[in-house]
């Protein structure tokens, strides 16, 4: 079966090269038949990558230990569920997942536009297929999941070697979040290839009109949705699995996922200016190229082992491949932008410095500054080692110091942006628009100052969340009231129609509201509390409002791991809350320890208990306890973010066109 998988990968790579070549020849010679052949080659690449992925899953599930990958990341007694997720546990499997996700995207895009954009699509196919070739080549020539284990005999001959059992899956990866977190994040990373391919297609074909930008915006939104969800799912996995009480540690790989998200977010805003005003063309191409390169760079960081990270489960020599590819892609993109420079000139000017356009430009700059700060902090250890020979690691304090004020400023722009009108906003209307949200925010701020916290950033963050929240609520109310007046609808119907008939605007506002909720969750960090104590069976201890009774300290043993655990009955302010069971496990195959956190979630705060082991007497459980306020709001915010983005992605309803008709009538009158 591994031979079949390998063979499918070779076929996929040959077909991808053929697709890229025929697409370019087809468009140069204006041959429709060759373009059809290129499209079919893309479909065939998809089929081959699916076959290869199917082979790997089969080999993992059937525990074929003759394969290095299977033996390295699974063991016979590993539950089937985790055998499947081991697909992306190691380097070569992750790279195959990259190829699979890209093949899915390429298939979808090629099929969706098979009858459209005749001069643009062949170049899009060529660009996606070149990226596909790169990742398939990595699998075939550098990190192949179908490689067999070999033992070398004394006479110099080598034979396939099959160990009795594998080394097992890293315990940290044995968590339900691992089914969904990596594929979701990869859907984000790889999804950004599509808008990049359209940008390169537009540059190569010279078709730099509205088409590529409209299509790119939608696909960027899809990638952004997955990237956002993937990042948050990663945070959730870290929170419930790693056992250190937090969800974000400015780990290089976390940073790697955040950087394309920041540039992608900038692109989603600035692309609107190009759509509406034909401005910022070079800027938009630059942003999407940067996003693509950061995605490749992110994969490189994760898989090369160049920086030490909790995610660098495997290290390898693929770094030079990645760096070469990144440099080539960067040079080619820069050349194309310079080559098409005359076609990328702005067709309009900003009507006013006080407008939605200028606020977007401002938000773009701040997002890029944030991205640069994260990039600098992430690669600084590598640069310092290269130039001084000493690896200087930059920790969370640097990232927090730089990014907390930037993040708060971005939060402010999240609320201020919607208050500006497109093209021109008068100072008088701006003052009016700022008045109520500012009053509400300051009033809230005074209450928070006296009753909740005097922590500077905490206070600023809460004031800004109130400000932005109020802005968005007022925007919805004003819009709905306008509809009530114009269409005689009741308020709730008006609110619904308002959102559904202006999906981009109000879907976007919902996403902004989600950011408010997420910021509430992040701000909760300032109230975090942690303590460590030892407790014997039958003993009681008090931590803040919580009374903890240790009902039992127990041991368990199964095929996969041995564990020690404590059963803790927790009451809050005298009322029984839950029976919690934190665990300390030792996995047999991998011989690695892991903690299973006991978590009691709440809107106000989470109670987070870690069993770190037994004390010297083996009678008392050593417990690390965290009280993490407001964390649940992060996950609620993520759900709202996904909902808002989905609203933005809904296709335009027919009824939007009927509204345009009324404008049409006036135009006809003007013309006459």
């Amino acid at each position, binding site marked *: 079966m591994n031979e079949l998988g390998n063979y499918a990968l070779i076929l996929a790579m040959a077909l991808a090269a053929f697709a890229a070549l025929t697409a370019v020849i087809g468009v140069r010679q204006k041959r429709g038949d060759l373009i059809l052949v290129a499209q079919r080659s893309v479909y065939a690449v998809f089929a081959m990558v699916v076959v290869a992925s199917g082979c790997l899953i089969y080999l993992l599930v059937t525990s074929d230990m003759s394969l290095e990958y299977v033996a390295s990341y699974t063991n016979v007694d590993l539950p089937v569920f985790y055998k499947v997720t081991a697909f992306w546990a190691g380097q070569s499997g992750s790279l195959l997942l990259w190829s699979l996700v890209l093949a899915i995207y390429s298939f979808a895009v090629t099929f969706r536009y098979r009858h459209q954009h005749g001069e643009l699509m062949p170049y899009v196919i060529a660009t996606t297929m070149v990226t596909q070739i790169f990742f398939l080549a990595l699998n075939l020539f550098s990190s192949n999941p179908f490689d067999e284990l070999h033992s070398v005999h004394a006479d110099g001959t080598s034979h396939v070697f099959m160990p009795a059992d594998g080394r097992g899956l890293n315990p940290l990866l044995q968590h339900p979040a691992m089914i969904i977190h990596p594929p979701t994040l990869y859907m984000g990373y790889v999804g950004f290839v599509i808008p990049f391919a359209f940008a390169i297609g537009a540059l190569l074909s010279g078709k730099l009109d509205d088409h590529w930008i409209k299509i790119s915006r939608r696909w960027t939104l899809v990638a952004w949705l997955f990237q956002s969800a993937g990042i948050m799912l990663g945070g959730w996995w870290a929170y419930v699995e790693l056992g250190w009480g937090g969800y974000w540690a400015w780990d290089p790989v976390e940073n790697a996922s955040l950087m394309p998200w920041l540039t992608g977010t900038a692109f989603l805003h600035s692309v609107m200016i190009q759509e509406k005003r034909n401005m910022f063309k070079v800027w938009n191409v630059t942003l999407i190229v940067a996003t693509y390169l950061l995605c490749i760079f992110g994969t490189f960081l994760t898989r090369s082992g160049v920086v030490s990270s909790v995610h660098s489960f495997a290290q390898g020599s693929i770094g030079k491949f990645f760096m070469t590819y990144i440099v080539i892609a960067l040079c080619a993109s820069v050349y194309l932008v310079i080559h098409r420079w005359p076609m990328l000139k702005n067709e309009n000017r900003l009507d006013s410095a006080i407008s939605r356009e200028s606020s977007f430009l401002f938000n773009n700059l701040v997002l890029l500054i944030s991205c640069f700060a994260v990039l600098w902090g992430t690669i600084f250890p590598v640069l310092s080692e290269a130039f001084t020979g000493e690896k200087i690691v930059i920790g969370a304090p640097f990232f927090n110091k730089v990014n907390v004020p930037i993040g708060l400023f971005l939060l402010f722009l999240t609320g201020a942006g919607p208050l500006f009108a497109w093209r021109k906003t008068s100072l008088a*209307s701006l003052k009016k628009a700022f008045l109520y949200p500012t009053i509400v925010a300051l009033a809230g701020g005074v209450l928070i100052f006296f009753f909740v916290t005097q922590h500077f950033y905490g206070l600023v963050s809460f004031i800004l969340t109130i400000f932005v929240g109020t802005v968005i609520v007022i925007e919805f109310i004003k819009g709905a009231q306008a509809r009530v007046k114009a269409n005689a609808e009741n308020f709730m119907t008006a609110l619904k129609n308002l959102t559904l008939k202006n999906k981009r605007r109000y879907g976007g506002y919902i996403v902004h509201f989600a950011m408010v909720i997420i910021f509430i969750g992040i701000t909760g960090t300032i109230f975090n509390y942690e303590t460590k104590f030892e407790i014997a069976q039958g003993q009681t201890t008090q931590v803040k409002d919580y009374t903890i009774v240790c009902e039992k300290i127990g041991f368990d043993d199964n095929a996969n791991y041995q564990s020690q655990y404590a059963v803790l009955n927790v009451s809050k302010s005298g009322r029984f809350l839950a029976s919690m069971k934190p665990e300390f496990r030792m996995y047999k195959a991998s011989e690695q320890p892991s903690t299973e956190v006991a978590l009691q979630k709440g809107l106000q705060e989470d109670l987070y208990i870690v069993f770190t082991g037994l004390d010297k007497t083996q009678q008392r459980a050593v417990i690390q306890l965290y009280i993490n306020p407001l964390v649940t709001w992060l996950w609620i915010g993520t759900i709202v973010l996904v909902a808002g983005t989905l609203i933005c992605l809904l296709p335009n309803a027919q009824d939007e066109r009927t509204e345009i008709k009324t404008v049409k009538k006036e135009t006809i009158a003007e013309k006459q």
Partner: protein
Amino acid sequence: MLTAIMIMLALAALIFVFKPLLDKTFVPFDLKDDRTKKLEALINHKNKIYADIKDLDFEFGIGKMAENDYRSLRGECLKEVSNVMKQIDALQDGVPVAGNGKITDAYIEDLIRQKRHHAVSGEAVIITSNDEMLACSSCGHENHVGAKFCSECGAKLVKN
């Protein structure tokens, strides 16, 4: 067995990919001529300005924009859209195209049928370009359904 599967896989892929070349069927590179593309671009531009006007109306309606700014920007948009519509009209002078900008076989057949009818009856014939608008066969101008005469050239409009 495995070798057979591999060969079959490769053969299936090759047949699937090369079928269009083996069949020697003519596949047009692009279904749209330059004129249609130019027209499409103009229609897109027109719709973009309509959307701008819609946004201006909305933002003025919820009090985000001063009245004088609103009036001047809206006026600019209306002027711009009128220019675009004149270009569309100039381009449509002669052979009208379908409302969505796509020339389909059915549309061409419909056009021929109407041309024939026109030659026989000598009347100006309207060509349905989409559900709401009717194109005049004399000048190609789009008129509202229900109009009896073309608002551009005055030719009589007759429904099919």
